[in-house]
């Protein structure tokens, strides 16, 4: 196979992934809609859960297939361009959403995250859709300034931490939503399947604590690259500035949690604000 056929294969696989994520999304939506029908504990106890469980499993299978296709697409893109596929915003988006999907699947094996399937498939559909329609660039070699090992290290670290920050934010949003529901009264039957507030709170914090050092490293690797390319390791360009702001906000979040003992609602809001700057 030559380079352009790898490039075509990559595009096809990304389309397959997009399509399969869409199916996963509909199955998850069906599952959610189905379980929401029960709105009291009494009616919930009468509902047969088999359909919900089955449709969730089916949704996850489609999600997994989509992730595999996407992984294939990312690898094929790399082969066609003979480099790590992180050279432009299109490649950044497809690789970034892949790590997000993988983070969900991997972390979902340890914690029960099945209930996150719907919001996560929506997010990935949005990212991939934007990538395919607005950000697409034909596969091409990199301009000299971008040919740097440190850049690859920097972007990989940034993408992994970005994906996990996003997951942490999804969990924090779920926390806020459930918290509001609990303050108003009881959880709906659907929400009863979800983990307790305490677990969500802990999970959201642990994900941030997990990737904060990686994010710090990503910024430093970026600075090392900028030094080699332009002779300045920090130049306050918009990307540098925003990575710095994100770092500061998450640093404040960690301090707030560890030192000031913030928990729950306040912490979830702070992590969402930090995440939106990412």
């Amino acid at each position, binding site marked *: 196979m030559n380079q352009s056929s790898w490039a075509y294969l990559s595009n096809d696989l990304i389309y397959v992934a997009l399509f399969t994520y869409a199916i996963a999304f509909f199955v998850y939506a069906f599952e959610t809609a189905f379980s929401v029908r029960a709105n009291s504990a009494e009616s919930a106890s009468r509902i047969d859960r088999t359909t919900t469980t089955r449709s969730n499993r089916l949704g996850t299978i489609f999600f997994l297939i989509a992730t595999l296709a996407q992984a294939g697409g990312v690898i094929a893109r790399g082969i066609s361009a003979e480099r790590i596929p992180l050279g432009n915003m299109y490649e950044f988006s497809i690789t970034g959403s892949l790590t997000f999907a993988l983070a969900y699947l991997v972390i979902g094996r340890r914690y029960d995250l099945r209930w996150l399937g719907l919001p996560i498939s929506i997010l990935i559909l949005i990212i991939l859709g934007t990538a395919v329609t607005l950000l697409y660039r034909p596969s091409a070699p990199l*301009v000299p300034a971008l*040919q740097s090992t440190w850049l690859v290290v920097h972007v990989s670290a940034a993408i992994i931490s970005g994906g996990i920050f996003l997951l942490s934010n999804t969990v924090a949003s779920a926390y806020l939503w459930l918290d509001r529901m609990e303050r108003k009264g009881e959880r709906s039957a659907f929400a009863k399947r979800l983990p307790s507030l305490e677990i969500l709170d802990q999970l959201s914090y642990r994900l941030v604590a997990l990737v904060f050092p990686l994010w*710090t490293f990503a910024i430093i690797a970026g600075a090392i690259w900028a030094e080699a390319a*332009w002779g300045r390791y920090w130049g306050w360009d918009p990307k540098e500035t925003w990575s710095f702001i994100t770092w500061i906000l998450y640093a404040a979040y960690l301090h707030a949690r560890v030192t000031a003992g913030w928990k729950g609602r306040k912490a979830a809001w702070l992590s969402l604000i930090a995440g939106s700057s990412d």
Partner: protein
Amino acid sequence: MSAPELQGGLLLRYLWRQLTSMRTALILLLLLGIASIPGSLFPQRTASPLKVREYFESDPTTARWMDRFFLFDVYGSPWFSAIYVLLFISLIGCVVPRTYHYAREILKRPAPAPSSIRQFEEFQLVTGELEAASAWLEKNRFRITKGEGALAGEKGYLRETGNLFFHLALIVVLVGIGASSVFGMRGEAIVTMGERFINVPTSYDNFAPGRFFNLANLPPFSITAIDFDAEYDEVSKLPIEYRLTTQVTTNPNSTATGEIVRVNHPLTFGDTRVYLQANGFSPLVTVRDASGVIKFEGPVPFLPQDSNLSSIGAIKVPDMQPQIGFVASFFPTAARDEKIGGFSASPELLNPRLLMSIWEGDLKMDSGVPQSVYRIDTSEMKKLDLWSLGLSESYDFGVGSITFNGVVPWVNLQVVKDPGKTYALLGSIVAIMGLLASLFIRQRRIYVRQVGDQLEIAGLPLNRLPGLVDELANLRNAIEKGRI
């Protein structure tokens, strides 16, 4: 006691305590984040001076007001500096006194087990001997304080150490950044192929030393530009590689060695580095007067305007009477379009062409006002002619002639002396290690207390990492085995 009641030294101490409190440090940290936002929204003079000029041209009043608040120089502005200087002081005030406190903490043994340990986590009863528990704690390298029929063990002191090192390292990073801007320098020079760049201030087109930079500290190197290669992608015409071949001497007495400079691969002379920043073309021209005497000869650097290296420039001939100037455009691959006229179709030298308007009059080179080498003020000059030349062509414009002999590439070299860089990098590495230690090392206490013939065991996690349950289960096993 409220602040206004305090006098003199007391007030100072009050302010110092406020400034160095953790809360103030956090607020300053958040403020620094917020304060850096405008710099990403408005163009900054240091990064994009042209865009700043556009602001001033399109709406001068607003731009002037924005400028009063330093919105085009956010990161050098007094208010931004104020925040980070305060943060820096606050950080020092926060961390340095703690270093002593922590250092003592780190060396200490844990406080003895309290009289009741029921309130701690994973409280449970085991049948066994205190010695077995003590042996297990010792084997697992807990620091142990023995009490009357009780044990307290603590482990994971590296967490606090890491925390401390993280904050100390941040101070080192900030000091490094400060040192660079005060003791460092940066400068740029355009060097045409064949020319030699000698590292003295006058060689620079643009020279910006730090406040305490000593000119004697300029390393005495020289770089002769031999050859410049640019490789482009066939389809997209995007650059793939730039490569500058040079002969370098590190001091006036040393012999020259061949070096290649590429983007991302600067030349290094101690803490001074030389970067390949930009490139363009210098058309080689000869200008003669009407009698055929050469009045100007040589390469003239032109300024690229787009990615296909369409360039503009000025050829000034002050030796002619009256003076002659050429306002010129250069296209490496000249092409014509009905709508936009002449343009360059590729950055490679496939069809080089020089377009110019020829002007006669005062070039104002002696006026003392510094002028651009790429432009001519033609407001008081007379236009003689308009012409375009291909390679090796000549044109006679009446009072003289011009010949387009060839093209040589030039490169823009950026020279940067950054003495604080190493400290910033070392600080960053220590900061990450410290961060990892403070986030992932589990610090916990385990208490054991003899009650009758049974042991009470319980734990106190000092941070929220999981693992205490398993650890106590292991301890329990060891105690039970110890009995058998």
